[in-house]
């Protein structure tokens, strides 16, 4: 009996450890466009013909489906940007792939090492490669 209990505890622990963390709720409209919203403390409100999810608003009749996702699927892919062409306002946030926040000034001063970074602005989130 004790063995069974221990085995159950191990199984529970294993499954819990493997539980997928769905950090986004992604909306897909009838034209295939996707927009992801972070789920932390998320409230969805329906008012009339509009659904509001965080900073996103959708016309109900345009919505095809929604689903939980592990990534922000708003981004359509990796964009290669010449840092010389980059213009950023002070509110943009830059993260390395370890999740460490990088000071904007390092980008503007061309002090960033080569690599992949996540850039989050008021309007979108995307990946940036410094070559």
């Amino acid at each position, binding site marked *: 009996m004790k063995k069974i209990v221990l085995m159950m505890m191990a199984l529970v622990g294993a499954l819990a450890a493997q539980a997928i*963390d769905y950090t986004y*709720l992604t909306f897909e409209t009838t034209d295939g466009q996707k927009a992801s919203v972070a789920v932390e403390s998320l409230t969805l*409100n329906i008012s009339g013909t509009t659904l509001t999810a965080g900073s996103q608003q959708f016309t109900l009749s345009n919505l*095809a489906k*929604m*689903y939980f996702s592990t990534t922000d699927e708003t981004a359509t892919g990796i964009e290669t940007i010449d840092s010389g062409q980059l213009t950023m306002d002070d509110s943009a946030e830059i993260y390395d792939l370890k999740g460490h926040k990088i000071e904007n000034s390092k980008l503007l001063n061309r002090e960033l090492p080569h690599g992949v970074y996540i850039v989050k602005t008021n309007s979108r989130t995307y990946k940036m490669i410094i070559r």
Partner: protein
Amino acid sequence: MIALVLTIAASGQTLNVKVGNVTYQFPASETGDMTYNDGTTLNIMGKTFTLADIDAMTVDNAEVKANQVAVSYDGTSAMVTVAGNVAQYVAPTINGAHVTIAQSNTAAVDDDEITYTLSGSTADGEFALSGSYKCTVSLAGLTLTNPSGAAINITNGKRIQISAKKNTENTLTDGANGSQKACLYSKGQIQLQGNGTLNVVGNTKHAIKSGDYITVKILTLNITSAAGDGINCEEYFQMKSGTVSISGTADDGIQCDLGGDTSTGETADHEDEDSGNIYIEGGTLNVIVTAAAAKGIKAEGDLRISDGDITVKTTGGGLWDSTKLKTKASACLGADGNITISGGTINLTSTGAGGKGINGDGNFTATGGTLIIKTSGNAVVASSNGTLSTVSSSQQLDRYDSDYKSSPKGIKIDGAILISDNAIISVTTTGAGGEGIESKTNINITGGQVTVNAVDDAINSSYSDATKGTSGAGDLTISGGYVYARSSGNDGIDANGNCYIKGGLVYAIGTTTPEVAIDANSEEQKKLYVTGGTIIAIGGLENGSSLTQSCYSASSWNKNTWYAITVGSETFAFKTPSSGGNTLVVSGASQPTLKSGVTVSGGTSIFDGVAYTNATISGGSSVSLSSYTGGGGFPGGGGFPWGGGGPGGWN
């Protein structure tokens, strides 16, 4: 176990969809695509919401247990939370604190059933459930009163588990003058269980009613009031364990009826059984009923007790049945079928007029357990117009037809009585007309220990109109065991047919002539046959007995005195009563010796302390014994001047 693990581990993000006071909880890991349709509906895990009905949707980290529906009562309102995996099958309707749920699934969900967990308190609410598949109703600290109907009303015809969660106390109360069948009603089978406590008050009819069977295990169940029965069910009732207390009922404590017209009898594992049987297999059962002619436990089929600690008390008097034109009386245990006792400790007390310990229409078989019965009411009689009264002496009963009287008997059985093996039975009646043990067919004692102190016949084997004249009708046979039968106003042992003493130890005490210690129906050419056993008979034997085994009598006996009878190497100590017939007759496999005024130490007490086996005997004086060939109060019956009804008697 896998299902359990999955249930426990279901955590992470949860989408909550709130519609009125109902919240549906969908685990993010299970939702998949949640589809919108024309801007009017949203489908999640098979549940379709009308968007206009949704009050809010939120995402949090609430843990969702699969197959769970929680109903929380709070004063005049109630909240319902539904796990996402069963959302499509559960349709709640809430009106104040009145919660009605329609469960539409017809198959198990994720290999399990839906559990409805009820908690909170309301003085004006209910839980109503319809559907067609088995489920569990878990009570988790619930006080639910419905002044206008049943507290819990389940019209689902399938098996319902009603479980009181550990360390919780739950109380259900229904309204008076309603149309409901019970405070807790289920059309289907009810399995009552759980480590918690459930209190039930039934103000309109029964406290608990099932249209099918009811089982009880582990649960502490208190029924404190009912306008009808405490528990009423059909098919069968089974108590496996737990503690059930029933009081304050206006009718029976537990009643089980046949559901259909024909009994299936007991089936393997009770599968598809419709027998009207009651099975008590363990636990503690306390029943007190006070209504006239009420039964503590009543089975339309058989009553079988194999274990448990059972205490039943009836206090109600008699009743005139104007339909059947006969008197009725209370009984602690009653069965239209057979009654079998193979274990347990059973204490039965009946204090009302005509009240009985056990009243059975079929056979009675006791092979084990301890059965203690005490009745104290007088016999109840009815005039020709059904007016009831009681009598103060057994002799007054003789002028009443059987339908117009009901005597307070310890055990009254229409069929045969068989007592054997390890059964221990003690019966005491103190009211007028109180017989100890009576069969209307025949009595066979092959073992066990029977102790009867009665006002009327202590042990009476009789016959009914149906059995009269049939072979063996009214016969009484003792071939083993220990039998003590004392009547203060009639025969100790009375066979309306033949009486056979073949073995065992029999200590019988009858009152004075013309009654005897051991009687047979010599008026109808029946006899007492003594072919074995050890016999002590105060009051002598019936005249004309066939005494193949020699009997002996003493010229006198002393009341309230310890005697010792020795047959071969066996010595048996017994105390004489305070009164009884004149002749003391003894018999054994070999000629007994008898000593009076002995001191008894050690040994094993039997017959409620008036006898010992294997005791150490000291002192006393030898009693002279003479051959005895019969008696019965008829001069010369035994051929000796002290042969029953002769000189001598107790001092």
